[in-house]
């Protein structure tokens, strides 16, 4: 198949699909085109949709391809959509729990508790409720606790290609070390006792 009609066909299929369309699914419907060619055509489709005269773009999300409006048209588009996109409001605890699951998956409740320092049950229940997190069998250890992982819905709601697209934890590690470790006026136990207490910044003191 020539490249242009192939791209057109791919666009049509992605348009009608309810879920992000995977390469496997496309290969099944278009068996006579080599996989590599499909992949290349998809790449061109993604690139072409970035043109400034295009309002909808083909994006890689949740392991597949799908169409969506570009974020810059948000305001005008919203006026056309009958009701609001169901807003995904997550509390900070829920977001933190989600972050832990996203990076440590599959992970158990006690493991999350250890990192957060607080019982994560309520936050976890919220995430399960919203379908952002799903169960993933049981851990083969004492008590066989339930394992949790992020769902496809999570990838879609957060616009991620797949879980590996998240920035590495190392980046956050460096950030944490930088902001908490290299501060002025560091007064440790090893420092002269007098120093540290006086250096306390009267943050909220009136």
């Amino acid at each position, binding site marked *: 198949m020539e490249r242009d009609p192939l791209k057109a066909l791919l666009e049509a299929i992605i*348009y009608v699909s*309810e879920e992000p369309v995977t390469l496997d699914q496309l290969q099944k419907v278009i068996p006579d085109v080599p996989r590599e060619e499909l992949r290349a055509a998809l790449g061109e489709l993604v690139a072409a949709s970035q043109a400034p005269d295009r309002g909808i773009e083909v994006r890689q999300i949740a392991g597949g391809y*799908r*169409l*969506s*409006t*570009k*974020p810059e048209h948000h305001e005008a588009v919203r006026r056309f*959509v009958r009701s609001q*996109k169901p*807003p*995904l409001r*997550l509390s900070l605890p829920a*977001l*933190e729990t*989600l*972050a*832990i699951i*996203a*990076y440590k998956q599959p992970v158990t409740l006690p493991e999350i508790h*250890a*990192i*957060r*320092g*607080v*019982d994560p049950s309520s936050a976890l229940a919220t995430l*399960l*409720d919203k379908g952002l997190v*799903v*169960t993933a069998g049981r851990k083969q250890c004492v008590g066989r606790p339930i394992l949790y992982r992020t*769902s496809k819905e999570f990838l879609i*709601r*957060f*616009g991620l290609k797949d879980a590996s697209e*998240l*920035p590495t*934890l190392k980046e*956050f*590690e460096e950030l*944490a070390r930088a*902001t*908490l470790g290299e*501060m*002025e*006026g*560091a*007064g*440790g*136990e*090893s*420092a002269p006792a007098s120093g*540290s*207490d006086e*250096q*306390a*910044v*009267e943050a*909220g*003191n*009136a």
Partner: protein
Amino acid sequence: MDSLPSVQLEVYEGPLDLLLDLIRKQQLNIFDIPIARITQQYLDYLHRLEQLNIDIAGDFILMAATLIQIKSKMLLPPDPLAGPGQAEDPRTDLVARLLEHEKFKSAAQMLQQKQVLEQATWSRPDLGAFADEQGELVVTLWDLVKAFREVLERPPGPAALEIVREEITVAEMMEEVRRALRESQGSVPLLDLCRRYPHRRGLIALFLALLELVRLEAVIAVQAELFGPIFLRKHKLFDVVFSDDTAAQIDQQYN
């Protein structure tokens, strides 16, 4: 309260958040935490919560104990048997936990940003979600468990009660007959009993139960006049049949 750097009583989600905030506000170096001071501030905070009659979660108490333990370890002279550089800083574990927690707080913020951006785009499935066909939901295992819980917690309506009775077994129905006889001082109109079970299967169970009880001579059916109401009464073996042993057997089937 001058050891607590803030006059406001902040609300912390957990002990690690509180500690991180204390470190941040005073611009302390996390790799060299003044543990005595931090412990004092931490305890002051809990103390103020107590004064306000706010329940303190177990996680906060546990951390208080950990801090005190670290503090006391630091007061001990270094182990003379340990080689140079070998003695471990008692704060190491705590620092690792704080850093780990901080890491995921940043990750959470990153997720939030991604989500806000994604919220500004529209896709056809989003649109379809509004006019959800026939109120059907895409379900997960969690939905399944929740559904079961909700069913179990739902107070049974009057219809439910009627149906429960309808589906009881013969053994259970025998128990029902006994209860009815006890409640009515030994005599029950058969028709009253039948009216409790308006459906066929319930009536069949009742009928079988009565046959069983009559055969066992636990119950007798009497009719004072032709075409008159039939009454059920205790018979001579009533107490024997419904002895502890029999009742236990019935109970077993009941569960």
